[in-house]
């Protein structure tokens, strides 16, 4: 694997699992998160949760930004578990990047509003799958147009909803 060609950030991995179109748009600097109420709420939750935790926000290799890290775990704070699979992929990717650097950790996803914490460990399967995700990300962001929109059950909750679904009837 040529690591440098496959580098992605955590959000890109998350978006890959949520919506390929969102991944493309976001990677082309077309972000719509700033004005979205849900995203703003998520930011506040992120800033106000676990304030006693010492190592909040660790930036690694200028690439991944880990919410929390200690001797055993890396932790990520999410406002709801609706995107469980995508959240899991994001933290698996963090564990994977750390492992490449010789740092071995387990993962925790915190859903403070649901009072729920999921523990995550990197498996052999994940170690094989992750490079494939990264290749997929590269493939998608290199498309010269965004992937066509697809109606997903969570579209109306997305910060990109107005952008994707606005249009005119003839």
């Amino acid at each position, binding site marked *: 694997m040529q690591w440098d060609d496959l580098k992605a950030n955590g959000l890109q991995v998350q978006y890959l699992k949520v919506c390929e179109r969102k991944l493309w748009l976001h990677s082309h600097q*077309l972000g719509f998160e700033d*004005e979205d109420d849900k995203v703003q709420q998520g930011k506040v939750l992120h800033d106000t949760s676990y304030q006693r935790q010492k190592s909040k926000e660790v930036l690694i290799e200028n690439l991944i930004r880990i919410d929390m890290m200690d001797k055993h775990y890396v932790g990520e704070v999410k406002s709801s578990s609706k995107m469980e699979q995508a959240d899991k992929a994001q933290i698996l990717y963090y564990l994977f990047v750390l492992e490449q650097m010789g740092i071995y950790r387990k993962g925790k996803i915190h859903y403070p509003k649901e009072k729920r914490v999921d523990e995550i460990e990197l498996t052999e399967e994940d170690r094989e799958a992750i490079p494939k995700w990264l290749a997929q990300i590269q493939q998608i962001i290199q498309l010269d147009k*965004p992937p066509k929109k697809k109606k997903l059950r969570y579209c109306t909750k997305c910060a990109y909803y107005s952008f994707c679904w*606005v249009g*005119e009837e003839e």
Partner: protein
Amino acid sequence: MKNVYLFNNGRIQRKDSTIYLVFEDGTKKTLPIENTENLHVFAEMDFNTPFLNLMNQKDVNIHFYNYYGYYSGSYTPRRKKVAGFVDVQQAAHVLDLNKRLYIAQQFVYSAIHHMLRNIRRYKDEVEPFIHEITQLKKQVADATDIQTLMGIEGKIRFTYYQCFNAIIKNPDFQFTKREKRPPTNPINALISFGNSLMYTAVLSEMYKTQLNPTISYLHEPGSRRFSLSLDIAEIFKPLLMDNLIFMLINKKMIRAEHFEYIEEHICLLNETGRKIFIAEFEKRMSTTIKHRKLNRQTSYRFLIRLECYKLIKHLIGDEDYKALKAWW
């Protein structure tokens, strides 16, 4: 998020994270920055850089208008929405004449649609003008250069303005011809003032997207500072502003006494008049309609943003741009 309008002279002071407005008459007010989006300065105000820095931090645009109520310029916080990819595509669509024409024609079609929508209610009196505009509309598709397109648009607007006297039945607001600089009578003063507000409203929405406001299609890019704002304002002037002007006059909310004259021939809306106008404009901008595609209540202000989104989608090769045509 609010638009705050300042009419009284004074000073703007920052103390920590609070902004105080200190007026000449000694009154002091605080400005609620957290939910202010635009500050419109119609008065003479003194301020300093700590104030500007806070505005930058809180993402508040400041728009300045001169003594005559004309837009003179803006202080906009450092652009946070930048996308090199969109900039490049935006320019590519200017450089290719066919691509440029397509977008420019969309703006013109939308403007015509909204002009006709306004005058159709007075069908009996303006029938010949409707016919003339409908005929001219056919030429839009055949225009092979921007100048010709602009010419057709100009003729249509001229015809449209001739309907104003049928809509406004008030001799104080008789429309003879459009005069911009300076307006010499009340109706022209209203149109000019309205255009200034529309232009800044479009610009403020555009700043929330990745569009570059200097790269335009109908208006010549670079001829005026933010010419894309003028392009998109074409869509919303007849849809939103002209209607508003008719309403203000016909309901006698704006009357002859709301104007003042400078050197006898420059006609301006006075402070009371501006306040009435702005209050009704803000009311209309926040009015919502149910968007038939998004299936969501959408304000007129957000419709402007959606127009920017549709344009971006066109520029990046996602979906062809079709300009707004009010369906409600």
